[in-house]
Structure formats: structure tokens, C-alpha cells
């Protein structure tokens, strides 16, 4: 599918196609990002321009000395692994299930994405109340289903809270992964399945040999997106637990935001954001490498 190699005309045409996205991206993403990087080299409260004080890498040194940073990093690592595996896995599983002739499939497929439509404020408030031991709603429901052994202080126990957050994010957020997999699955021609069927392959074999290889590239996309989202978003965590209890669910983007906007350590907050960005890029890069993305030639 690629035309020409190292010729000037393809490069010029390509540039034409790239120009709109690239120029907007440079101006509205890269330039502010450079600004953030610059700010991270200063000690700044963020209330007036005159009070900026150059500290070089001092903020970064402080980041690595900060115990909450390491705690948050650990939580992010946990959520990352969880989100990548659980969300992608659940998304793929649901997409596969939707490929069957289960009735009302498209109805359910539509519903699974709806939680993304709801503001995180509402999600946090409602789930807090439902899971609260004070009101006892979830507890009562579990009792009715004879599942009382599942009861715990889901959001109030510093040890359990992070797992609760992971589970909640998975169930609410697998819609996007599912959609991406559905798009990939739909691109697989039916003939391939029929060929496999006529070769006598069982259901499982058909999935293994036909489906999975053809969605592998989309799988890389899904895992990268899940990975990046888990490192970047903190709206739901903040709404559910404020990063507590006892900093038991604090995550890096939340910590960076609090430092910059609540504690008036703007330079420090930017430093945390920069470290987070670097980590994200490394992880995403590894995923691309391992997934063999972009190596296919057409």
C-alpha cells in the first residue's frame, strides 16, 4: 500500500495531509507542554509572575524524595496492570460475546458505553453512597443475594480501597475498549470463518486462529489507550475517595494537580507531571515495541 520510498513527491503529499493536525498539535499541545517543562525548573507559587525562582533540577530531586510520590506511583502501577488486563480483557470478551447471535446484542452494545456519558461527579457521589456502610445499600443487596462474605469497607479501608477503585473503573470504563475491538472484529471477513468452519475447526479454534491474530494490532491500541488513560485520569478517583483513605488511593496525576493548584507548589506540580509523562511514554513505547505495531508492511 505504501507508494515510493524516499521520493520527494510522496513526502510532499504526506506533508499536505499531515499539515492541519501537525500545526494545531504543535501550537496547542507541544508549546504549552514546553511551558510546563520550563515551569518545572522553577520554584513558583503561581500567584504572580515576579515570584518565580530558578531551581534547576531541585524540584525533581524533591519528587524522588517524596514518600507520597512513591505511594502514588505504586498505585498507578497497580491500576495500570489492572486496567490493561481487566479492561482490555473485559472489552475483548464482551466484543466476542457480541459477535455471537445473542438476542438484543446491539441493544446491549449500545448500553455498555453509556457510563462514559455520565459525569464523574455523579458517578463518585452515587457509588460513594451506595457502597457506604452508613447507608448500607450495597450491603443490603449483597445480603439479599446471600453474598454477605463480599461485604467490606470497600472505600473506607486503606488496604481495600485501591482494589475497589480498580474494579469500579473496569466495569464503568470497558466500553471504549469493547468498541475498538468490535470495530476490529467487524473488519474480519466472514469468508475466513467459513473457511475455517469447513475445515472442521471448533469454536475455540476459530477464535484462536482466525480472530485473535487479526485483532492483535487493535489490541495493542486498546492496551496503550487503557494504559495511558489509567496514568492520566484522576477524575473518578478524586470523586470516589479524594485519594484517601490515608492516601490509600492517591495517584500521580492527582498528586501533581494538588501540588500545583492546592498547595501552590506550581513548579513542583509541573515536575511531577513531567516525570509522569516520561513514565507514560516509556510504558507506551514498550507496549508498541512488544506488540509489533507498525512493523507490518502493506
Amino acid at each position, binding site marked *: 500500500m505504501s507508494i515510493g520510498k524516499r521520493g520527494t513527491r510522496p513526502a510532499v503529499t504526506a506533508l499536505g495531509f499531515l499539515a492541519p493536525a501537525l500545526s494545531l498539535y504543535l501550537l496547542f499541545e507541544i508549546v504549552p507542554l514546553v511551558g510546563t517543562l520550563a515551569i518545572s525548573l522553577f520554584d513558583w507559587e503561581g500567584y504572580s509572575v515576579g515570584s518565580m525562582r530558578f531551581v534547576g533540577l531541585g524540584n525533581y530531586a524533591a519528587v524522588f524524595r517524596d514518600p507520597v510520590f512513591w505511594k502514588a506511583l505504586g498505585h498507578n502501577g497497580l491500576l495500570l496492570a489492572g486496567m490493561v488486563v481487566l479492561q482490555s480483557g473485559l472489552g475483548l470478551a464482551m466484543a466476542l460475546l457480541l459477535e455471537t447471535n445473542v438476542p438484543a446484542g446491539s441493544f446491549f452494545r449500545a448500553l455498555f458505553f453509556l457510563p462514559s456519558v455520565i459525569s464523574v461527579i455523579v458517578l463518585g457521589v452515587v457509588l460513594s453512597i451506595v457502597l457506604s456502610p*452508613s*447507608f448500607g445499600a450495597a450491603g443490603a443487596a449483597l445480603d439479599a443475594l446471600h453474598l454477605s462474605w463480599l461485604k467490606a469497607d470497600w472505600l473506607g479501608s486503606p488496604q481495600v480501597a485501591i482494589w475497589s477503585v480498580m474494579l469500579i473503573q473496569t466495569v464503568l470504563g470497558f466500553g471504549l475498549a469493547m468498541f475498538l475491538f468490535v470495530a476490529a472484529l467487524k473488519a474480519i471477513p466472514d469468508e475466513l470463518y467459513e473457511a475455517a468452519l469447513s475445515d472442521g475447526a471448533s469454536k475455540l479454534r476459530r477464535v484462536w486462529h482466525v480472530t485473535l491474530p487479526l485483532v492483535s494490532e487493535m489490541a495493542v491500541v486498546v492496551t496503550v489507550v487503557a494504559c495511558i488513560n489509567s496514568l492520566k485520569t484522576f477524575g473518578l478517583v478524586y470523586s470516589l475517595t479524594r485519594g484517601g483513605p490515608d492516601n490509600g488511593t492517591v495517584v500521580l496525576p492527582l498528586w501533581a494537580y494538588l501540588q500545583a493548584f492546592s498547595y501552590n507548589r506550581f513548579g513542583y506540580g509541573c515536575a511531577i507531571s513531567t516525570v509522569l509523562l516520561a513514565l507514560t511514554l516509556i510504558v507506551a513505547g514498550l507496549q508498541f515495541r512488544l506488540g509489533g505495531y507498525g512493523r507490518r508492511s502493506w
Partner: protein
Amino acid sequence: MSLNRRILATMTALAIAAALVGCGKGQGSGNTVTLRLMTGWGYPKVKTAVDGLIADFENEHPRIHIEHQALDDQSYPAALRASFTSGDNLPDIYETEYEYAGYHARAGNAMDLTDWVKAHQDRFQHEGFVDSQRLRKSGRVYGVPYSAVNMTQVFYNVDLLKKHGISPPRSWQEFLDACARLKKAGVTPIALGAKSEFTVAHWGDMLIAKQAGLDVVDKVAEGNLPWDNPDFARGLERLAELRKLGYLSPGCVSDGYMESMAYWISGRAAFFHTGSWLVAEIIAPKSFHWDFFAFPDLPGGKAQTGENVAVANEGFQVAAKTKHPKECLAFIEYITRPEVAAKHWVAIGKVSPIRGANEKASAKVRKVAELIAAGKRTVPYGLMRHIDEDFPEEAERAFAQYLIGMLAGNRTPRQVLQAVDAARKARRR
């Protein structure tokens, strides 16, 4: 080509001239002066009150027009600081809440109002309220206080207490006895939502202030004593005791402020502790009867009678770089008149730090004002007397998060205090 170039040059010159002329925009036409007032009081009830202040002021000063930019409470701090750091959309007057007064004063954004305040000193009910706008190091004042809150009260469900034959406790022992009675009757004594952090931090502040007394608190605030001292620890132990005895709501660790308030209003808990802003802000049906009593002194506590935890949480500052200082001060002078504050501000349930403004308020507002007035000395919430003291925000978060850990059974009171000391030290340069 040269003709085109000449045209281009002329047009450029005209454009520059127009831009320069346009820079003078916003000054109003003729004799009127326009001031920009920025607040985070976009919440309809409060915005109407501010607009009322402005309307009456403009009536008295027809040559001054005030443009009120009312943002919502959460965007406002970020928008205000963005204005100051970028130089765009600078306000002439702006409101401050709690520690923001200190941030802006330290950053040089606020005009020094020490002389003005000194000249109008008797307008304010309590020296402590002016302290909320004063930098300790220099002693200079950078704004005027406009709302006061009292922290030393506990709200209660009137019907629930009556039903169980309990009268509002007047001592800590009576309070514990009441909790025991309620618990036995199957009612949660105290509703607490620690997730929101400030809720549990207030409990901590109160118990510490009552246990240690303001002399010790002052020593700690000035850096002569660490937070990790026996009096502070004893104060926090009382909260741990409440938890151990089962007097706090079951979800106290993970519930937030609104959830715990809903728990209280639904009649499942009897007591609820928060600041006196609740008087203005509570949304409950008329069938819900509530009142409040003064937070009892602790047995063995060093707090003297009349030591309160109260603060002027809201106030106004004038921008240091404003082009109309005289007009700004005219506005400040106008709104700090007791009858003006009473007409608009106290009317919506706020408590005013201005002498005489609370006299015709509703019964509950007057009761709060009396509690505050009865205090011979006050210390602000967060135990800072002045706004630039050594209690940075991350110390606050450490305090709150470790207290939550204490409620969850993970931390001891001394660990909580040590965390605060560590956070303060890390911040000191």
C-alpha cells in the same frame, strides 16, 4: 510596488494607533469610573446579595460603576491566579477566602490597607477578624474581613434528642453520656464524613484547641513547639476514643461532607459538627428541626472559658495595581457600614464581623454571633492566627489523611502529629 508599500505602512501605523487607543478601553466614558469586581460567588443566592450591595453603592456614588464578574466557587481561585499571572482581565477588587488572602498578599497582588483599617478599626467586632488579613511577619493588613464563621459548635437533631430524653450537653462528660444513650437506643450518635478532609480536620482542630488552650497553640504556630506535643496528642486521642466506642457513623472514613449531612438529616444520627456556615447553607425540609450547642470544654483541658475557634473566612482585597484606588476604597468603606452589611449580607444567613451588623438577623445567626462575641480570644480554623504562618496546605492534607488513617485504625494520634511536623519541615526553606 512602492505605492503598495506606502499603503501598507499607513495601514500598519493606523492599526498600531488604533490598538493604542483601544488600550484605553474599559475606563468608562466621560466622568464615570468602572471598577471590576471578581468573586467566586456565582451561587445564585450569594450573587444576588453582592449585586444588591453593588446596586446600593452605585446609587450613592453615581459616578462609579462596578462590573461584577461572578465565577463559581471552584473555578474562581484558578481563574483569579491566571489573571494575575498573565496580566489579563485584572480585577480592581476581589474576594478572598481563608488562606487565599495570604497567598495574594504575599505575592504582592493586594494593596496595603493597614492605615485604612486602623482608621476604621472600631467597625470590626474582633481584632482576630482583622488578623485574618494580616501578615504576621510585617504586621501589615491587606484586606478587610466580610464574613465570620464559628467552629466551636455542634449541630443536633432537636426531635431525636427530645425523643430520647436528652438535653443539649454542656460538658464533655454529658456529651459522652448522651452518645452512650443514643447508641444503646440504636441511633448513631455522631455523623462524620472524613473523606472530605476538612470535616475531620475541624474535629482535630477543635479538640486540640480545647485540650491545649490557645497559649500552647500560639507557641506551636510561632514554631516554638512542635505539633507532636502531649496536649495535642491528648486532644486527638479523644477522637480516637469516639471511634473506638462506636459513636461515629459506620461509614465515617469513606463518607464525604454531603453524605454525612444527608445521613444526619435522614434522622439516623443525632450530632453533626461543622462550621457555622451551615446556618446559611443547609438544605433540609421544614420538618427537620435542628439547633446547635457550644462545643463543650474538655476535662483537664487547658482552654480557658471563652476561647473560641472562629475565623473571618471571607473578605475583600483591593488590587495593588488598580488604577482607581480612591474609588475602590469608597466601595470598601460603603460595604463595611453595619446597616449595609446587615441589609444584604447578613440577610442571607452570613455572620458579619462588623460590629452591629448581626443585630437584626435571624435567631440562629444571632446565636452564632453571640457565640463568637463571647469568645475573649479566637484562633482561626487550621490553628493559624495569621495567614502566613507555618501551616502549609500539604500539612493540612497530611493532618487530614493521617486522621482518616487514625479512624481506620492504621495510625496513632502521635503519628498524625508527627506527619504534620514533617510536612511543615519539608516546606520550610
